[in-house]
């Protein structure tokens, strides 16, 4: 402070200060994960090759490196897995709840013990930043098993009658965006309620489920209670269609959800679906703006926007539109896109070439339809699948980018003038999974929440998850709830 002139310093000097302070790469060690060259299916407590001997490769989306070969389950394998689950169902469901609880507590503890290994594995196979797999996915996975462990011996308190009964064999098909967390959401309540499961992980992210199989072994879980069949859409379809399955649980796209609903039509199978979304994040002029900007960023760029409940539509009140957009762009310029294993990375790789193509196509359509495209200034790696955080302004309800789920780091900005208009625009979609409200006025939060047709409404926060809190959609975002006491209902019969 030698001079009391208060103009900002010479820009070249301050740019130099920022550069000197540029964070050096801080990669998390890959050494904590011991990857085998190939993995089999986990059926009846053992790893085995697919009956037809088929395999597929799983890649690291950040580098396109082949991580491992994985068995590709066919109908015969699905048959074996369902048979194993059926055989295990009797003894498992007959165990006292206290004993099932203790198995689940063991699994939760082993997940906690191995959480760094699993976080690195998840980041390798999925492309998500290690900061998220380490600080969000894995703690939630362990917490989910803890929570449902506690329910296993308290089912009579779940509000489903004095003696609710398990359904039997659950066929569970999960997506690639939160591989292990979606596994936890499916397996923990199913097992707590006394069901046995056959789970099919996504084709592009099979590894953490197979590591979970090893955790079941360490926990001493009886064989056949959990079976993992890896493969593609055909594997999932065979599992869902299997006649000896009592329950189907699916998380994924609305299109596939519709197919599954048709498949189980006319059977006794119980079905829960957690599907797509086009969440509206509504920012009022009296919002806590700095936190709202963080919430917008977290709402759409968390997990590269590959989140079914992402706040992909920003509805901002016209009076603060410019202020919010300026702050948002300034903030997005600080996002660090790159190596997912770097602890400083905020935005990682898109999960697959196919998904990248889908995002690219929709973003191009947005531009073609006349919306204004802005991308954060960031260098993208040359290998792997990447998409820069992108914001579209001047978006109207008619644009594809305002209607279709992009499932990528692309935010569409729309405006509103009154609460009624915000509600009308937010609800004007076939989806109904999530919504966000930003205002300091409590009564407005509650009124808006009442009127929004969405299964989860976040106020002055976004993308919050907890095992005690039910999650699921209205309308074409699916039916049934996962998490909380309500999540048990999907796996129990009233009695």
């Amino acid at each position, binding site marked *: 402070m030698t001079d009391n002139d208060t103009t900002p310093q010479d820009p070249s000097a301050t740019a130099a200060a920022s550069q000197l302070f540029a964070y050096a790469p801080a990669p998390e060690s890959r050494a904590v994960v011991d990857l085998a060259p190939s993995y089999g299916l986990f059926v009846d407590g053992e790893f085995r090759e697919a009956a037809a001997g088929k395999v597929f490769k799983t890649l690291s989306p950040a580098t396109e490196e082949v991580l491992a070969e994985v068995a590709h389950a066919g109908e015969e394998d699905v048959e074996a897995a369902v048979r194993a689950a059926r055989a295990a169902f009797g003894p498992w469901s007959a165990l006292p709840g206290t004993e099932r609880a203790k198995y689940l*507590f063991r699994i939760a503890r082993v997940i906690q013990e191995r959480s760094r290994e699993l976080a690195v594995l998840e980041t390798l196979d999925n492309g998500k930043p290690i900061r998220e797999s380490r600080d969000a996915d894995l703690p939630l996975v362990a917490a989910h098993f*803890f929570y449902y462990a506690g329910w296993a011996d*308290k089912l009579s308190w779940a509000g489903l009658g004095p003696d609710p009964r398990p359904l039997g064999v659950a066929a569970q098909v999960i997506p690639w965006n939160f591989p292990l967390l979606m596994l936890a959401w499916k397996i923990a309540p199913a097992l707590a309620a006394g069901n046995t499961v056959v789970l099919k992980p996504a084709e592009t992210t099979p590894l953490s489920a197979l590591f979970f199989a090893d955790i079941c072994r360490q926990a001493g879980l009886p064989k056949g209670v959990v079976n993992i069949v890896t493969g593609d859409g055909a594997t999932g379809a065979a599992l869902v269609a299997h006649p000896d399955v009592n329950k189907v649980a699916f998380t994924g796209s609305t299109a596939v959800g519709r197919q599954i609903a048709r498949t189980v039509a006319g059977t006794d199978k119980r079905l829960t679906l957690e599907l797509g979304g086009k969440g509206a994040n509504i920012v009022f002029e009296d919002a806590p703006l700095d936190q709202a900007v963080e919430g917008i960023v977290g709402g759409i760029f968390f997990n590269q926007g590959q989140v079914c409940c992402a706040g992909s539509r920003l509805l901002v009140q016209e009076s603060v539109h410019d202020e919010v957009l300026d702050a948002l762009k300034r903030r997005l310029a600080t996002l660090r896109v790159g190596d997912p294993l770097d602890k400083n990375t905020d935005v990682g790789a898109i999960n697959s070439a196919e998904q990248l193509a889908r995002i690219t196509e929709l973003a191009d359509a947005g531009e073609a339809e006349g919306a204004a495209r802005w991308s954060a200034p960031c260098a993208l790696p040359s290998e792997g699948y990447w998409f820069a955080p992108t914001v579209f302004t001047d978006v109207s309800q008619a644009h594809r980018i305002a209607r279709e789920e992009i499932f990528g780091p692309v935010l569409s900005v729309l405006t509103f003038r009154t609460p009624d208009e915000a509600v009308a625009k937010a609800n004007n979609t076939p989806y109904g999974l999530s919504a966000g409200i930003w205002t300091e006025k409590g009564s407005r939060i509650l009124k808006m929440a009442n009127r929004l047709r969405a299964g989860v409404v976040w106020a002055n926060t976004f993308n919050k998850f907890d095992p*005690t809190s039910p999650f699921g959609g209205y309308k074409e975002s699916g039916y049934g709830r996962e998490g909380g006491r309500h999540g048990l209902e999907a796996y129990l019969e009233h009695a």
Partner: protein
Amino acid sequence: MSTPETSRGRLAVLKTYKLYVGGKFPRSESGRVYEVTDGKGQWLANAPLASRKDARDAVVAARKAFGGWSGATAYNRGQILYRIAEMLEGRREQFAAEVAAAEGLSKAKAQAATDAAIDRWVWYAGWSDKLAQVVGGANPVAGPFFNLSTPEPTGVVAVLAPQRSSLLGLVSVLAPVLVGGNTAVVVTSRDAPLPALSLAEVLATSDLPGGVVGVLSGDTAEIARPLAAHQDVNAIDLAGAEGGLAAELEAAAAENLKRVLRPTAGPADWTADPGLERMTAFLETKTVWHPVGA
């Protein structure tokens, strides 16, 4: 369990049993001890004979710990309670031996009681983040109002542990008080205090913050009277009050309207499904109203 000699003629090192107050293991402030014997009258140990001042110190520590324990997330409390079960399991043999000596049980029966006590901790640990979902909820009031009721802990609870079931009974009265977020001052069984004093060692090594539980051994009535009358104690569980003591303590507790859980009529069956009663007895219900409008 203290046997004076080991099988190979080596002289055993005996444990000095101490009180547990504020996360530390003091001797009684009074300097007194009393003789604890097994069912056959054989000497087991000298237990501290806690005084009213020890009771006062334990209440101060429990009050100090209340903010942190009640303010912890339910998930966090559940993790800690489950950790206690893990540590108990690790000392299963020790507890089974202490229970056998304390209650005059066969090895198998003492083992079964110990196992049941561990499983009960696990059962209660699981309640921490479910209680509000079962006993709380949204109320559909007739008006534009959000209305939500949630349970909250009462505060500092004095717990008179059952006189006969030295571990299973103790766990069955202590865990439900803790799971809701209360802190506790436990008065052990008079004649069978050793499992409780050993349990304190488990609590001290399970990430449970100091002061959340105080454990006092000695004459039940002598310690319970000041606790029942204490103005900074919010509730009292009279499970271990026998004869006319329960009524006397309940009357004393009326002064600051302590919540009182009376002892069962006749001998208690600690192996039965406990239900919610021992948890809800020490919970308040808080209802929040908020207008709903644009």
